[in-house]
Structures are given as structure tokens and as C-alpha cells.
């Protein structure tokens, strides 16, 4: 492990790959990040030396597996500045975390007439759970409007968040616009009216220093696979009081205290939310990812990703025929864009032929596409292993695509 940003690329085996005769330029980290050797080794070591079910047995392997699993919880807690490791609930990812809050907290607390507030830039995972729980409870879903540059309109927020608001759900960083949302300010508005603040940290936690206390959130959901960790593991962090008033979602092994034929009582948080055998190797890998990111330094990564995002935005915006979306700066390390007259799928395909991996589509943000009035966009997203030369390749791919389609 090199533990410096400048040379970290070599820690990622996949980045040595060629695609269609070109060295791979991976610009799809907002969909999922690549994994450093340290993470893959931690997972392998777990399976080759300590694999056992956790919390269940008294033998040596089980003790080791439990220590590794709970150790990962402590690492994650430290990474986000949680007060106690018990506030960290392991999930499959952001989607599951947000659904847990909707089913476990909101379904229990919302009444007809209550309001849930979100924004039109949300990922489907931070929208549909609220649509559904509102339908089920009779609460109403309301939207903070966006300013024309794709940032949250704070005046709209002040109008929409009011005495009926029980829950505000917002992403900290948009996966399309790159907007860095004013979570602390919105959380203050939410708390002023007694509402709970739910933050979708899928794009922020991998790319920004996260201190849950300063963030002002009551719940924060994020995914391991977007922060150099394995697939199938994520985190729901919640304030202990909020987690305690939340119903469990998955009933089964390890989440119980006492069970008779007819009734059951629950274990304490976080076990209450971790019914069934968890993704132990996934948690261990996430712990290793947290160690890796911490060794590189989250401050450095945050600055690096923003710089790349802002640079890519400027360089793409200066290419004739290219439209870029969202604010120029400050922005996270991703840029959504379109080429006039060329469909994003075709753009991504030609990019791929040049070894440049980007994403094209609605990015699980159909209401935002409706707001932008486009069917879909291309998106380039950056992470610690990218650098300016990747932006050169990106711009070259844009030129090549324009030439190819004769625009």
C-alpha cells in the first residue's frame, strides 16, 4: 500500500487493464469504485484464516470472525465521527439503509397530514421509499425546488419545511449534478420544526470528510462499494435515540432477545437491525477500505476529487456542442454532460472503444431528467486514482465521438 494520492493508482489491480487496445480510464466511480489490493487481501485473509459465523459460537474462528466484524464497525464509526460503534448498522448499501428508515422509522411515526420533504435531484433510492411510506401512512411528499444552476433553493426549502414536516430526506452530493448540498443548513431547518433529517451519503461519504455530529443528520446511509469496499455492504448510521425508536425490518437469527412460539422481543441496537447472517467478509473489506482511505487522507481525497470535477466541468463546457449540467463550482468529482445530436448511449459506446469507461442513462434520477428536460445524460466521475491525464483522455474521447458521428 502506497498511502499517497499521487501514486495510489498502482494499488488498484484493475487499473492496469486494457480495453480495446487502450489503457483503461475508469470514469464510473460514482456507479461503483474500484478496489485496492489491501481490500481484496483483507477479504481473502478473512476467508483463508478466520471464516466463521459471528456472535454464534465460542470456537477460535468464531471469536476471530466476531472481532474482525465488530472491529470493522468501530473503524466505520471512527471514519464518520459517530459517538458510538453501536450507531453503525451494517446494511447491503444505501438503498437498504434508506428503506430501513422508511419502513422502520417513518412508517411508525408518520400520520395523515404529516409531510415528508425531499428534492427533485434525489436518486430513486432516496425518493421511492418516501413515496411509498407517504402512500401508506397518508402523509404528503413535498419538494424543495432547485435553482436554475441545479443547487438547492434555500428560500424554497424555508417555505416547504414547516410545522407539518416530520422528515427531510436529502442527498449530500448529487450523483448527476455534482451539487454539494447544504445539509447542515437544511438540518437546522428540519430540527427547528422537530423533523428528522435523513441524509443520502452515497456520493458524499466516499469523497468528503464526514463528521456526523457537524453534519446535523439523524440518519446517514451510504454504500461500501462506492468507497473502495466490497459489493453487498453498506452502512446506516443513526443517532442512538432514533435507532432505538425504529422498528426492526428483517426478523430472524441474532436480532432477538427471547422467542416463544407466539412472540419475540428484540436485541439491542445494532443487532436488532442485523437479522440473519451478515455480510461478514463485506464488513471486513469495508473496514480495510476505511483504513486505506484514511491512510491516504480524506481531506486530500476531497480536494482532489473536487479539483478534478471542476476542471472536467470547465474543459467539457469549453468544447463546442457539449452541454454540462449543475453548478461549475464548488462541485463534487463528477460531471454529467451531453453532446448535441448524439445520444448518450452512443457517446458511452464510442468512449468505450477508446478505453474510457463512463456511464450513460438516467442515473436512477428520472425526476431530475424531467427537470433537466433530457432523456438521459453521459456522466464522467472521478476518484482518488484518477488524475488530469484522465481528463485529457475524456476530452479526446469527446472529440473522437463528435468526429465519428460527423457532428
Amino acid at each position: 500500500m502506497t498511502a499517497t494520492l499521487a501514486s495510489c493508482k498502482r494499488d488498484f489491480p484493475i487499473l492496469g487493464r486494457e480495453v480495446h487496445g487502450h489503457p483503461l480510464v475508469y470514469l464510473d466511480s460514482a456507479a461503483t469504485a474500484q478496489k485496492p489490493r489491501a481490500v481484496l487481501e483483507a477479504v481473502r485473509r478473512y476467508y483463508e484464516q478466520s471464516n466463521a459465523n459471528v456472535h454464534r459460537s465460542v470456537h477460535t474462528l468464531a471469536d476471530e470472525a466476531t472481532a474482525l466484524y465488530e472491529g470493522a464497525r468501530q473503524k466505520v464509526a471512527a471514519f464518520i465521527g459517530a459517538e458510538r460503534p453501536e450507531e453503525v448498522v451494517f446494511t447491503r448499501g444505501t438503498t437498504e439503509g434508506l428503506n430501513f428508515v422508511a419502513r422502520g422509522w417513518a412508517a411508525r411515526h408518520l400520520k395523515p397530514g404529516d409531510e415528508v420533504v425531499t428534492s427533485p435531484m434525489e436518486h430513486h433510492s432516496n425518493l421511492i421509499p418516501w413515496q411509498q411510506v407517504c402512500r401508506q401512512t397518508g402523509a404528503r411528499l413535498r419538494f424543495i425546488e432547485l435553482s436554475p444552476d441545479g443547487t438547492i433553493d434555500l428560500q424554497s426549502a424555508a417555505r416547504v419545511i414547516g410545522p407539518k414536516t416530520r422528515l427531510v430526506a436529502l442527498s449530500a452530493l448529487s450523483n448527476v449534478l455534482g451539487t454539494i448540498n447544504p445539509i447542515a443548513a437544511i438540518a437546522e431547518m428540519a430540527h427547528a420544526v422537530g423533523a428528522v433529517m435523513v441524509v443520502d451519503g452515497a456520493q458524499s461519504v466516499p469523497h468528503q470528510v464526514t463528521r456526523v455530529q457537524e453534519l446535523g443528520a439523524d440518519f446517514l446511509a451510504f454504500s461500501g462499494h462506492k468507497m473502495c469496499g466490497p459489493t453487498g455492504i453498506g452502512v446506516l448510521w443513526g443517532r442512538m435515540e432514533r435507532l432505538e425508536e425504529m422498528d426492526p425490518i428483517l426478523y430472524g437469527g441474532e436480532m432477538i432477545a427471547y422467542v416463544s412460539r407466539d412472540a419475540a422481543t428484540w436485541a439491542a441496537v445494532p443487532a436488532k437491525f442485523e437479522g440473519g447472517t451478515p455480510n461478514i467478509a463485506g464488513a471486513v473489506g469495508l473496514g480495510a477500505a476505511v483504513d486505506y482511505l484514511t491512510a491516504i487522507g480524506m481531506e486530500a481525497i476531497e480536494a482532489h476529487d473536487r479539483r478534478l470535477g471542476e476542471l472536467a466541468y470547465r474543459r467539457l463546457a469549453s468544447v463546442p456542442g457539449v452541454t454540462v449540467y449543475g453548478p461549475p463550482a464548488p462541485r463534487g468529482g463528477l460531471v454529467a454532460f451531453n453532446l448535441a445530436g448524439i445520444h448518450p448511449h452512443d457517446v458511452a459506446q464510442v468512449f468505450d472503444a477508446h478505453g474510457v469507461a463512463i456511464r450513460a442513462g438516467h442515473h436512477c434520477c428520472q425526476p431530475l431528467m424531467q427537470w433537466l428536460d433530457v432523456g438521459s445524460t453521459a456522466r464522467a466521475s472521478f476518484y482518488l486514482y484518477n488524475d488530469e491525464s484522465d481528463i485529457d483522455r475524456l476530452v479526446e474521447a469527446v472529440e473522437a465521438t463528435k468526429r465519428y458521428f460527423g457532428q
Partner: protein
Amino acid sequence: MSTDDSLEALYRETILDHNRSPRNRGQLPDATATVGLLNPTCGDQIRLDVKVVDQRVVDIRFTGHGCAISMASASMMTEAVKGKTVEEALGLARDFKRFLTGERPQHDLGELEALSGVSRYPSRVKCATLAHNALEQALSGSPPNPAGDA
């Protein structure tokens, strides 16, 4: 595959041509059936107007937006089925969908065979079949077999 080979496999010149100058683009005021379809993965849309007289596709037009593959496929399809019987047109749509999963077509697919490269790009199969699914729906009045939608 090199850059050029990989692009050439997918975007044959015919496809780029149909994409640039789509045939039978527009609507039919006297259509006997109209079908709108959306591809949720990429937001592509097509509207297909068909005029069937005596079990024969006497006219057909499409509008919509989507990638080069889906627009060229729609354009080629309209050319291929115009004048055919409903039976023949449905056969062609099904044959084409099989063709994209790597099977041999039973009939001559004409220009549509230029889309053969799509079978190597599973993520693009949906693009190439959108218009054909709309055609099946317009001619049979029922949603197409989802298996062919893969």
C-alpha cells in the same frame, strides 16, 4: 478488438446512415394502430403508427428519440415491413429478436442484418428491439413476449 473494429462491429455504415437520415419518420393521420414504448433503462422513446388494410401493412411511420442503434433499427424495420402481410411482419420482428440473441434468422432480414454486432453488446439489445416490440404490439394488440426483451 481495436477501437475501430469494435465500433465497426456495432455501427455499420448503414446504421449511421439510417440514424442520420431516418426513413418513414413522422406520423400517420389515418393509422389503424398507434403504439408508444419507452425503454426505462435509457429513456428512449418510440411512437409507431401503422396502417393495416386487408391484413397488410400498407403504411408505417415512427417518431421518437433514442440512440443511433434504436433509431436506425426503427428506420430499417419500417422499410422492411412496409407492404408485407401482418403475418410476415410479425414473423420478421420475432426473427429479428432471435437474430440478436445470436440465433440464425429464418428469413432474409435485409438491411437489418447490419445490426448483427448488437448481439455482442447485451446492454444494447434493448435499444435495437424497441421498435420491433412496438411493431408486435401494434400488430397483435398485445404486449410482446418479455423474454425477447432481454
